[in-house]
């Protein structure tokens, strides 16, 4: 059995875990390539116009993978208990895939994360139990799956901790630093966020990813910018990242794919709460041309230097 993993959505959060898990079990998998124009176009064509950019990208990857694998790997990631919930779209991906591509009868492998306890899903619960529920579908014993999960989990946590350490090092370094705030599936997508990263780097600025912060600590840190009713786990971590790095950077760039539900509210909260740093709000919708974005980045870099001079004068 060959499994297809879309390089989109939660792949950017759980990619290491998933890949190491399948590697440890010796299961063949295929990862879709970096997003390109054709993938986005396929996704846009099949999704409703007003769907968010990230979901168009996701379905583009699904469409690419459909005839290159036996089974699509689309986890059902919904409710992380006290840590918050996911945007409902991630919960909808398995059913959406089944319905959007019904004529190509996709096979879907999934696991369910749902701590709400209100679901009657069979394999709801914590991550390990959720992974174990895939044993039958993968034709492996529970023991094999458990071991593979634990190995993969350790590797993925170590990889993340290393990234956080690197981000901390960058934040403590010299030079102009910008905190990039956005969902990691936007920031690290080769077609959406990477061009912006490259443009920023072109001005010699150090870019720090706000996602790279201790996730447990972020659950407390975010309360400095919002009250506890903020539901989304990723938004909580991003606000936590802002609290963590805010005093060590020169400016903040908010990167959002149109029309992201959580960001439509959270970005406004950020803009209202951060009054001591310049904030650039970039809203992307899969445009082809980079000229407009480049102009805005260039002027933002200019603002940063004025701002520094202004602060120095005070």
């Amino acid at each position, binding site marked *: 059995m060959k499994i297809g993993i879309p390089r989109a959505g939660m792949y950017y959060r759980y990619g290491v875990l998933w890949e190491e898990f399948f590697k440890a079990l010796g299961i063949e998998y295929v990862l879709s390539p970096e997003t390109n124009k054709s993938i986005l176009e396929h996704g846009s064509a099949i999704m*409703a116009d*007003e*769907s*968010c950019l990230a979901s168009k990208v996701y379905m583009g990857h699904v469409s690419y993978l459909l005839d290159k694998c036996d089974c699509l790997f689309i986890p*059902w990631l*919904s*409710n992380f208990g006290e840590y918050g*919930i996911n*945007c*409902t*779209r991630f*919960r*909808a991906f*398995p*059913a*959406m895939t*089944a*319905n*959007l591509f*019904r004529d190509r009868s996709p096979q879907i492998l*999934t696991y*369910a994360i749902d701590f709400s306890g*209100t*679901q*009657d*899903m069979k394999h709801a619960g914590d991550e390990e139990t959720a992974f174990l529920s895939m044993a039958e579908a993968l034709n492996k014993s529970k023991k094999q799956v458990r071991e593979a999960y634990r190995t993969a989990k350790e590797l993925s946590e170590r990889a993340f901790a290393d990234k956080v350490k690197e981000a901390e090092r960058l934040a403590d370094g010299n030079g102009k630093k910008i905190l990039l705030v956005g969902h990691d599936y936007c920031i690290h997508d080769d077609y959406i966020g990477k061009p912006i990263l490259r443009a920023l780097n072109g001005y010699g600025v150090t870019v720090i990813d706000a996602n790279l912060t201790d996730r447990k600590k972020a659950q407390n840190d975010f309360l400095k910018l*919002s*009250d*506890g*009713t*903020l*539901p989304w786990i990723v938004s909580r971590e991003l606000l936590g990242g802002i609290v963590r790095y805010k005093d060590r950077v020169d400016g903040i760039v908010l990167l959002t794919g*149109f*029309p992201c*539900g*959580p960001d*439509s*509210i*959270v*970005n*406004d*909260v950020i803009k*209202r709460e951060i009054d001591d740093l310049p904030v650039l709000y970039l809203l992307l919708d899969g445009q082809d041309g980079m000229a407009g974005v480049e102009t805005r980045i260039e002027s933002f870099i200019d603002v940063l230097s004025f701002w520094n001079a202004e602060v120095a004068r005070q």
Partner: protein
Amino acid sequence: MKNKDTAKKKISFSQFGHYNVLFEYFIRHGVEQDYVAPPAITKRTMELGNRNSPDFVCSPFKFTLGCFLEAIEAGADTIVQVGGVVACRLKYYGSLQKKILSDLGYDINFVNLANADRNNPKTFISLLKQLNPCCSLPKVLHTGITVLAMLEALDRTQATLNKNVGFELNDGDYDRAFGRFLNSLRNSKNNVFSVMRIYNRTKKEMAAIPVDMPEDPIRIAIIGEYYTVMDDYSSHNIEKKMAKYGMCVERWMNVSNTLVHYSAPKRRKVIRDYVKYDMGVTTTSNIGFALDCAKRGFDGIIHLKSFGCTPEIDAMPVLRNISSDYNVPILFFSFDCQNADTGIETRLEAFYDMIKMKKENEKRKKK
């Protein structure tokens, strides 16, 4: 200065269908505070809300914020926003709206029901105390039961109206009866029997209204996003417009059906052929109702939502599949604070014509 114990809070809530009548009753008789009615939603409400809201937030955020601003102008000093049970953006409305109002310089109490936790009854009591520090719990519970009865009565009466209003012989009969019904609810005694009496009286009154119901009327189901389907201004009065064309409208989604009678596991079972993994929020109930209507031979389905409503967009591919499997036409509307009704009317008219032709063709084939 007013004595703190005697000065009553002036509490307000945004416009939301006809449910304000119930909220008002609960505040006046249960919490024993004053109620300030938000002015009916107008273009100005929308503009006020729009101007102070983030760009592409869903339109209920803008509508409710506009209502709050107008209610404050009308003298409200305490605002209540919902957000308890759902898992979509609504949960975070209150937090930002509170910030927006305080950034605008208003000094008001903002009671955010998103702070309630279903598993912790204490959170509800602390919210009640924010409305009235010395409210009587027995009174609140007693009024709560009366209001629940009112909710049931209101939703049932509205359903009767939706089904028949398009075929009334004298224009406005149903609306007048409905207006009288709302008024009686407002002045009802605080017990379930009085509410039942009012409901039964209205039921009789409505049954006596002369209608010209064809043998096989065009039956249309309305589904969609919670706020937009229930609030007439948000939905551009689509139910009334449909009635004018002589459509028999059925809408399952109302507060009593979703909060009191709804069983998610049951609905999930019904839609298992389409949705193996629940998509959350209102998708399961909407897809379930759409499927039910398709099986019952409805002539069409209309799906309403605010622009960018994530869960309802997710439901669209499933609805399309149901539409093609059962040969039921479906019309999607997405609203975002536009003023003009013309576009909506044109699409509705075309939808109606198409259904009428389809129905006639099918009849001819049968013969």
